[in-house]
């Protein structure tokens, strides 16, 4: 499973990181630092929750 993020559309809500800082690392000022994350086995639910938490709807999960 992969997390795909439209990074340029991030406005720094940081709600994904509130679900998991490990899966959704932030940069210095609190915006998403990555565009793609490989989800480790066992973390699929947390990845989905983090994606749903984004008020900008810019996080997608790819199986």
């Amino acid at each position, binding site marked *: 499973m992969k997390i795909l993020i439209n990074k340029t559309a991030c*406005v720094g809500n940081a709600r994904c990181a509130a679900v998991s800082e490990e899966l959704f690392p*932030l940069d210095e000022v609190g915006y998403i630092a990555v565009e793609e994350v490989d989800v480790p086995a066992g973390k699929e639910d947390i990845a989905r929750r983090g994606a749903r938490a984004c*008020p900008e709807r810019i996080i997608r999960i790819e199986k």
Partner: protein
Amino acid sequence: MTDVATLSPVVPKPAHVPDAAVYDFDMFRDPQYVADPHRRILDLVRSAPAVFWTPRNGGHWMLLSHAANFNASRDIEAFSSEFVSKTQVEAMMAHMPPGTPHIPMPYPINVNPPEHTKYRAPLQRAFSPKTILALKDSIRTLANELIDRVIDSGGCEFMAAIAEPLPVQVFLKMLGLPLERQEEYRELVRQHLSDPEPDPKNSMMKLWRITAIMRDTVVARRDNPQDDIISLLWKTEIDGKPITMDDMENYCVVLFIAGLDTVMNGMGHGVRHLAQNPEFQDDLRKNPQNIPVATEELLRRYTFTVPPRIVGKDMEFEGLQMKKGERAMLFLPAADLDPKEFANPEGFDIKRDKPHIAFNGGVHRCLGSHLARVELQVLYEQMLARLPPFRLDPQRAPTFHCGHVIGVDSLYLTWKV
């Protein structure tokens, strides 16, 4: 205070607005709205069009549905924040008599990208989740000190005793302003709140009072930097040029208005809900780990800001003709109670996993959202940990004011001692 008996006069409907899109609602004075704001919003969500034009307050659009607010917040060309452009301000200043003080402009709130990005950038780090997290312990200490003062009295007027002084003190600390002048700042906040309707002359005077009270510290930090936001701002550049006193005054005004007249109302709405729901208080006392999600659901259920926008071009939006220069309100409190987005919106459910838009979205997402969240969470944690079950004082119902912020004027609480 606003006389709720007097609604603002009705203006004629422009020809391009169809009758079906007209709904008479006074966002400052509607009596039911001022009496119990979110009850009235639920009623509007059920009975008013998803986007309507009201003839009150000069005539303006109201965006109610979640979809309309979501889309409008992200289309800054269609729904602009630039009520007065930078060029217009500069032209206005050029015509003022010499010696007229600079008119502080609330940048980056009232400016579009690319200017917005330039003015917001220096503030981003100071309000990042990481910086804010480091303040959590000191916020908890402040909350405890305020609770200490009322805990033995069996009750308090929550807004004056806790909701207003807590963010004021946090704000003074972050900016590096002298804590011993706290009373002057609180007085300025009270003056600001007692006049919620925008009158240009009054607004200007208020802005000048804000910059005047902060001026000494701003100058002192320029010469002797410390570890605070004012010092940090002096070290930044805008457009590759060193920051000016005018820029600093703009920041002072933005931080003052956005930092003080907002989160205190979130506290008021949230604590009112807790006081009305003793079983929910019990639940959270037993499961304090749920306070962060409860804070989110309180923000959704009682979203309280109504950011204004100006239509940037003639266009069609949600099947309606809108003309350049018309005003449109992002009625976020209604968006977060839209049944199309949140099933059973009136119900309170901490298990919801859809995000609310209480802090709005798009580039103007509330810069202070991380601070507000920590202040709210810590306040609820300490209120629940330290006070016995608290209720609304049955003799004194809460009072509110409405406008761009749905504010709590008074909230009397009681508890057993």
